[in-house]
């Protein structure tokens, strides 16, 4: 088991957003976190990477236990050495070129030598098909291209797991495919991924597990195939039906 979180609680301004979430991710898993807007999916992911502080919860990463409320700065940094985070809005550094976006985390964050960082960054950018735009600035790229650079930025530090927070939600429909295909390729290479998404095809065909959330609670979790073919809970069924109905 690579990552396990237990009993995560989080509220904003007195409103409880996460009401005791449990989640386990094994090495090589691609877990899709599904659920209607406002169900707490993004908050869960942000708590797991300490972009938000949970009020309660335990996190076990590579056998190491962390209290999600009390984890120290050093704990967080140590854990982030093994993780990468891909944001909905890409969040590339706008004053840096594509290449610098990827190297900066390596040279500043991981103290890698400049030449080595450059080599590693170019390799990562090749994996997402962006090695031909090294000197471009984010503002000169499409959303899909920016997101692929953001994925390369995460890949460059050789993480054990990548968190994706609705990676295609900000994209124009015609640009979603290029990002999903990079993610599918990563999944095929055995990368462990935890993905908050609304892309049902991705959840059904690429992810190995599904975690379905509603109203801050886990309603159902299990292998993707089972979840889509034979949802156990009434609310999961309703959710799948709504999504499929929307598409017709």
């Amino acid at each position, binding site marked *: 088991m690579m990552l396990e979180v237990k009993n995560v609680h989080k509220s904003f301004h007195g409103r409880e957003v996460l009401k005791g979430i449990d989640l386990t991710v094994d090495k090589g898993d691609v877990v899709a976190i599904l659920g209607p807007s406002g169900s707490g999916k993004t908050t869960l992911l942000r708590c797991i*990477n300490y*972009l938000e502080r949970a009020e309660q919860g335990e996190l076990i990463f590579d056998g190491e236990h962390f209290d999600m409320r009390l984890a120290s700065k050093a704990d967080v*940094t140590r854990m*982030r*050495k093994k*993780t*990468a*985070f891909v*944001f909905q*809005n890409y*969040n*590339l*550094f*706008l*004053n*840096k070129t594509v290449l610098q976006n990827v190297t*900066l*985390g*390596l040279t*500043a*964050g*991981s103290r890698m030598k400049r030449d080595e960082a450059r080599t590693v960054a170019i390799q990562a950018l090749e994996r997402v098909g962006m090695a031909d735009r090294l000197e*471009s*600035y*984010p*503002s*000169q790229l499409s959303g899909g291209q920016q997101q692929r650079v*953001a994925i390369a*930025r*995460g890949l460059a*530090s050789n993480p054990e797991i990548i968190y994706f927070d609705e990676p295609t939600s900000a994209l124009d429909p015609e640009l979603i495919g290029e990002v999903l295909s990079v993610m599918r390729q990563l999944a095929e290479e055995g990368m462990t991924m935890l993905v908050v998404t609304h892309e049902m095809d991705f959840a059904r065909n690429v992810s190995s597990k599904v975690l379905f959330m509603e109203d801050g609670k886990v309603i159902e979790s299990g292998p993707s195939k089972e979840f889509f073919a034979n949802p156990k809970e009434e609310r999961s069924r309703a959710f799948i039906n709504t999504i499929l109905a929307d598409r017709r």
Partner: protein
Amino acid sequence: MNERLWGILIDAFPKLLMYGIEVTVPLTILSFALALIISVIVALIQYADVKVLRQICRFYIWIVRGTPLLVQLYLVFYGLPSLGIVLDAFPTAVLVFGLNEGAYMAESVRGALEAVPKGQVEAGYCVRMSYLQIMVHIVLPQAFRIAFPALSNSLISMVKGTSLAASITVMEMFRQAQVINGRVYESLGLYSEVALIYLMFCTILTALQHWGEKKLGSYGGVK
């Protein structure tokens, strides 16, 4: 225009220009440097939300922006000596101009810092950069670009503002014009002339601003 006036103006020009270059310009540069240091520190304290210090910064901005610059000059130069604090006229001017413009510039810099999307800070943390590294590599360069027009504005406004130093006996360009005028009584001509020299200085700065904005670029052109 008669020949006497021409003679006076031509005579006065090099004198005024000399005081401009030797006093007004250094006064502006020193005051602006002080203002810049103050503004960046005050803005960063607010941006990082440092407790207590933040309150002090808001108090400073409130006082300085809420009282007239001329009154501040008088207070420090003529008022503080009663408390035993005596400063020469020139340092007083630098201090007051620096503190005064610093308060306005702090707001420009703070606005610019806050205009840099927060997501980039989070992304920096996620690639294990420290707060300091994120500020140095990501936030400050972008904030500087955003604040540049406002800061140029402050600098240009300060060039003209230094003429107020005449009121606390600093012998700068405008004070020199007053002195010459005291001898020859050609207010219209002399004050127009000194206005023209200020205009000249500000024109140069405006050109520098445009050059600087081009030089800074906009990270790929789209903004």
